[in-house]
């Protein structure tokens, strides 16, 4: 198991956003998270990637505890150094890319492996070029993010995340900041990663994509997981009324 989250609770000044959520992800799985706006999908990803601190529950990656909850029900994170080591297991692709505007495409991809992981430059360069090729961007290595379309920027962001060789990659609505005609090129590379058995958790509003690419779909509403299962089951024959309602609204 790559990721295991148990009993996650998270509130923002009194507002309960995640209510006792448990989620596990096995190696090679592609888990899509769907649900209405405000249901807590982003918050769940942000908790999984330690951008937000959980109030209670536990998170472990590769069997190593990152957060546990003590007998008083208070979440306790492992010491800083250990947490940093665990952080290497995952990557995150943001809705609005968050590329570094002052770095070229190549430097955006190479900088973290070189300065953070201290890997040799030549090796990282080879890898970066290989990733760019995979993203269909091999001729834009020297461009700056502002010179790229949104779809291209998002593919650079994916390459940047992959360059650190994460065990699992999270996506938070990777195509919702893009013009409709650009979503296809990003979904295509994610699909390609799925074919290569990259472990991924994808928050998305692209229902046909989620249905086609996922090994499991999670439907969230109001801070709880309402329904979870094989995409054909969740999309084709949902058991919960809330799921049916949500999917019905989506088709209109």
């Amino acid at each position, binding site marked *: 198991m790559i990721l295991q989250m148990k009993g996650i609770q998270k509130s923002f000044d009194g507002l309960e956003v995640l209510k006792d959520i448990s989620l596990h992800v096995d190696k090679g799985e592609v888990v899509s998270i769907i649900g209405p706006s405000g249901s807590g999908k982003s918050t769940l990803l942000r908790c999984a990637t330690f951008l937000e601190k959980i109030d209670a529950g536990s998170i472990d990656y590769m069997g190593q505890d990152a957060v546990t909850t003590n007998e008083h029900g208070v979440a306790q994170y492992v010491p800083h150094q250990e947490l940093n080591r665990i952080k290497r297991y995952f990557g995150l692709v943001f809705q609005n890319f968050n590329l570094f505007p002052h770095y070229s495409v190549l430097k955006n991809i190479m900088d973290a492996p070189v300065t953070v992981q201290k890997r040799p430059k030549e090796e990282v360069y080879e890898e970066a070029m290989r990733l760019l090729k995979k993203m269909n961007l091999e001729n834009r290595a020297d461009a700056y993010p502002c010179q790229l379309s949104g779809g291209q920027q998002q593919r650079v962001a994916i390459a*940047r995340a992959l360059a650190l060789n994460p065990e699992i990659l999270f996506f938070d609505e990777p195509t919702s900041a893009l013009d409709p005609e650009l979503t296809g090129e990003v979904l295509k590379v994610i699909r390609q990663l799925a074919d290569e058995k990259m472990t991924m958790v994808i928050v998305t509003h692209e229902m046909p994509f989620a249905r086609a690419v996922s090994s499991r779909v999670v439907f969230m509403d109001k801070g709880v997981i309402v329904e979870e299962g094989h995409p054909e089951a969740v999309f084709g024959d949902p058991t919960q009324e809330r799921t049916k309602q949500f999917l019905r609204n989506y088709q209109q």
Partner: protein
Amino acid sequence: MSLSTMLAAMGEGMLRTCLIFFLTLLFSLPLGMVVMFLRRSRFRIVQSITKIYIAIMRGTPLMLQLLMWYFGPYYLFGMSIRGYRFAAIIIGFSVNYSAYFAEIYRGGIEAIPKGQYEAAEILGYSKAQTFFKIILPQVVKMILPSVTNEVITLVKDTSLAFTLAYNEMFSLAKQIAASQTSFVPFVIAGVFYFIANYAVAYAMERIEKALDYYN
């Protein structure tokens, strides 16, 4: 007195003016960074004290501050330090300008989107790496126009050193104008400040251009 003798007499003043200018920048630019960090401190008390400090620096005349720095040690502690005049000027200018720079830096830093910090954190950059590699270069580009304004103001403000009877260029111009009953020294002074500012604007424009490779 011919024009060339006037120029020669004022030459040393010009040098002193340049010295005040460069030393003030040398100290106030980094000091502003420190003040900015204190202003953004997690500790409320540090924040408040820094806020008051900035308010005083920006809310009182620089001329008055220079007098305080120069005469303060004497009136407060009965100290009279030989050769302190020049130091008082540099301290007064640097401390004052650091407050302005601190606020400019702060504006720049707070304008950097949160996503830049989050991306850096996910990629494993340390706090220091994030600041120096990711945030600061973007801040520098963003605040350059405001810094240029401040630097141009500094060129003109150097004339305030006359308050402490320091013979920078403006003081000399006044003296020569009085003794020669001539208006020419003021014209020379005006031309000097104008050229100096032109040079500053030109240099800053070059830097801005150099950073123009991204938006």
